[in-house]
């Protein structure tokens, strides 16, 4: 044990075992409502996605995604209103550009770009949401656990 190595063992990932943890940033007006309707509709979906509600996909700061990976997420997804349907009219347009750059950036940093996805799911698209969750969970599971950034201390 050297003084340059973190003394504390790697912080325990929030999800242990072989099930991947996917953090989802969902916009309140469309995607969160869509996910909600998937729930009330009792649609079958795996439980790998942990949802964080944001007012708009445009509120999603790239650092949220980086931090999710740093803290142990195996996959991250952002979902917002369809372009032209944003509750705040333009938020998702900014998000689209930003997340496009982020996707390539993540790959450059050494994180498989397949671990990050952006979707447009509207409030009435519960079915689509369930499908997004199913397919993404499958894809991320196949990739295995995400590479670790390292201990936090």
């Amino acid at each position: 044990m050297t003084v340059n190595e973190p003394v504390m063992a790697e912080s325990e990932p929030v999800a242990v075992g072989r099930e991947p943890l996917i953090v989802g940033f969902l916009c309140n007006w469309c995607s969160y409502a869509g996910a909600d309707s998937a729930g009330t509709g009792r649609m079958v979906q795996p439980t790998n996605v942990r949802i964080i509600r944001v007012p708009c996909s445009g509120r999603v700061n790239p650092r949220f995604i980086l931090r999710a990976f740093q803290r142990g997420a195996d996959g991250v997804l952002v979902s917002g209103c369809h372009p032209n349907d944003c509750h705040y009219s333009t938020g998702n347009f900014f998000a689209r550009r930003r997340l496009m750059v982020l996707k390539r950036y993540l790959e450059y940093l050494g994180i498989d770009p397949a671990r990050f996805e952006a979707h447009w799911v509207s409030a009435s698209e519960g079915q689509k949401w369930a499908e997004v969750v199913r397919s993404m969970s499958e894809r991320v599971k196949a990739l295995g656990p995400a590479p670790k950034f390292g201990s936090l201390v």
Partner: protein
Amino acid sequence: MAESPVPKATRLVTKAGLGAWLAALAADNTVMGPVMVDGKPLFRALAAGQEGDVDLESVHTVNSPKVGVLPQTEPMVRYRLDKDSGGAPTLSTEAPDSGPPVVVFGVRPCDAVAIELLDKVFLTGDFVDGAYKERRDKVTVVSVACPVPAKSCFCDSFGLTPGASRGADVVLYGRSGPGKVEGDAYYAVAYTDRGEALLGSAGSKAAGVADLPGTEGQKMENAISSFRALKTPLGDKLGRIDVAGKLDGLFENPYWEKISARCVSCGTCTFVCPTCYCFGVADTGAAGQGVRFRYWDSCKFPQFLTMAGGHNPRPAKKMRSRQRFMHKLNYYHHRYGEYLCVGCGRCVESCPVGLHLPLVAGDVRGL
């Protein structure tokens, strides 16, 4: 400051045998030393197999060896919330293991003195820092007398020399004296019990640390004297720095406003400095568990002194610049009777705007 401490043990170590010696030491210690990383000499823990790459030619590393006694990030206590068999929450805490003994190797004599200056802060006075003490008690300092002072060195401004032994457990002096290390070996001289133990250990013997040939006693004395007689060009130019008294009356002087204008408020000077020691305390962790740790902080950062409630007593750059130099050249002197600087020259080399101690000390004389 004339110095002639009595050696407790003397040995001979060949340049070629350094790698083997360090590898032997690495069996029971964490060995930290200077290595070239992408063209820059850095001080760090040596990885397995890296012992042969130790670089003793560069005059000093960009970062200082204080990492050996005061890590940049040091866990203090680990806490965990569990549930006992009855389901009631139980909190457990533990102090993280400070790790195996450490050999801080290949540092310059000024850096060894700097460690002693840190010891004064953490180990003396009304409060002894337990974590520092636990780590410090396991550290053996092996310094190397400087073959050639760098352009930025000014240790003699503080009464030190490139052959100083203060603060070191063992000093390696090039066999052929100062100048590029042409000689094939170093005289390894132990000045403390810890140093004596290191030199006399079975591992050291097996790795080729040999007894000093009887005929070399005088040659060694001469080499040591030559190192101690070396002057640094900058230190020679600056002369002895003795501005503590003068600074008593200069707190409100407009000089601080003028000189601080160039500062970019980064922490480079603080973090490369072997005598800076200010730290903050923070927590990190996940649900139900975490670590409280201390980390290096810099009085140059605007938020350094921000307190709960938001008040910041040093919002202006001039206050922060003044603080740094008053601490180094006045406050510490009042408390401990000497300056909190050893003239290593790292601030001279690293500050992007050249706002460093020799500049200020020189200017203060003229105020």
